[in-house]
């Protein structure tokens, strides 16, 4: 499905007014009787300093506009499709990590200003590109074909020197390293995966209703059986 088809399915044809660039998209849409802001990437964008600045500028604009109008803060829908961070000497020299931290700080500012935030993985969500804003949202949703990973198993095998076949075997019952939205669901970092047949418009509406500003992902991972140690160990250190 192309990006316009997806936006039609989410907001209804005519329900969105979104500027679509090569990698970046931003604008607004209507959900029921309220406006939402839509910001994100598509075409498996490699996130570089320029793209990070576009995303952060859009978030800041939404916050500032809503402060200025004195209206209740609009929810922000982050459209996530990224192959990860851009890899180049130039980007590293500029300190790309600082630009990513800035994006994260913008999402955090939005949250503290009362904006609900939802990420929708509609393509790939990879590594650093996913960290900057996708994983920062209150609630993370994924389309059925979403690809979520740090690295594919072949590259992982090369670096860790663990045979590829063994990694494939182990990933059958462990969600901890193999790519897949399902694994991130079990570990609590993807809150919900929508089915192909579902009414995605109502899925998004429902997600907005239950989006929670507190970070409960470790508890969710424990509850779903995919991440058994994070919550108890954090608890142990927090209250030892």
């Amino acid at each position, binding site marked *: 499905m192309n990006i316009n088809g997806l936006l039609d399915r989410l907001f209804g044809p005519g329900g969105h007014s979104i500027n679509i660039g090569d990698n970046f998209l931003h604008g607004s849409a209507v959900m029921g009787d309220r406006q939402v802001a839509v910001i994100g990437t598509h075409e498996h964008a490699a996130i570089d300093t320029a793209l990070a600045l576009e995303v952060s500028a859009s978030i*800041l604009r939404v916050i500032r506009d809503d402060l200025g109008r004195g209206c209740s803060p609009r929810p922000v829908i982050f459209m996530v499709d990224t192959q990860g961070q851009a*890899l180049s000497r130039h980007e590293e020299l500029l300190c*790309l990590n600082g630009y990513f931290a800035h994006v994260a*700080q913008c999402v955090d*500012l939005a949250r503290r200003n009362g904006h609900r935030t939802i990420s929708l993985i509609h393509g790939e969500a990879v590594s650093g590109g996913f960290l900057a804003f996708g994983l920062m949202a209150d609630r993370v949703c994924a389309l059925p074909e979403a690809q979520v990973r740090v690295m594919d198993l072949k590259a992982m095998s090369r670096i860790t020197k663990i045979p590829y076949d063994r990694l494939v075997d182990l990933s059958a019952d*462990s969600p901890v390293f193999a790519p897949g939205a399902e694994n991130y669901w079990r570990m609590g*970092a993807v809150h919900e995966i929508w089915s192909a047949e579902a009414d995605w418009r109502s899925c998004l509406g429902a997600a907005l209703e239950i989006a929670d500003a507190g970070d409960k992902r470790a508890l969710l991972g424990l509850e779903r059986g995919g991440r058994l140690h994070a919550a108890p160990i954090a608890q142990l250190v927090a209250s030892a």
Partner: protein
Amino acid sequence: MTNVRPTSFFEATARGRVAKLVDAGSFREFCPPRLRRTSPHLARLNAPVAFDDGVAVGSATLEGYKILIAAQEGKFNGGAVGEVHGAKLVGLLDRGIRERPAAVLLLVDSGGVRLHEANAGLIAISEIMRGVLRTQAAGVPVFALVGGACGAFGGMGIVTRLCNEIIMSEEGRLGLSGPEVIETVKGVEEFDSRDRPLVWRVTGGKVRRALGEATYLVDDDIDSFRSVTAELLCRYGAKPLAVADIDEVTAEHARLAERAGRFATARDGREIFQASGFVDLDEVSLLPVAKFNQQLLEYI
């Protein structure tokens, strides 16, 4: 008369750094090695485990100031973040909200996500990021100290940049993708990871200080890290931390946008040094830290 030789931050272990950085004997560790909370994921892959999963976390005092402190062990799996390791950092930050120390110190020495448990590591980094922001929102500052062999890379490079202060040595490095990764994917012409002077000119302490990414550049000895940290604890103690508001985040945005425009084609730290007023560019890497800081200050 005693003549105490400086202790290299770079060479020291995580625990060695903590011991020398804080007031003698004041470190109290949470979830210590004797509890043997090792990584179950490394064990399943028959990879070596560590009883502290590569990070020590605890409380201490520094010049009498109450602090919480974490130190990553770069010699264990490159300081990489797995489920247990990450949870210890998240727990420490949460404790900071409750205990309200003068600051939380993160001695970062990490390549980022631990690939053996990549998904758990990535999620943990995201939880640490939220943890740092939450702790700051509660009024507790978080400082990063970077001077180990693994630097602050991957997700830990992002975490480091969320901190209120970044104290680096010249030997420290800060970035997102390591030079080896860029060379592997994009080729040696893009980034030659064996060209060590180039690697430091792109990610090292001096170029990070010149860009304003590191807030302090210190000599590679633990006492230098300690005295700057003590000075900061005093300063933050006098003036409570204000949570970043729209104006502050907008100012940061303008600063980053200006840099991206100004250095739109730069690929070598020499261009940054030149723009920072250094004339003899071959000399910059040889300049003692004090002299480097002084020249930088004179130009600004």
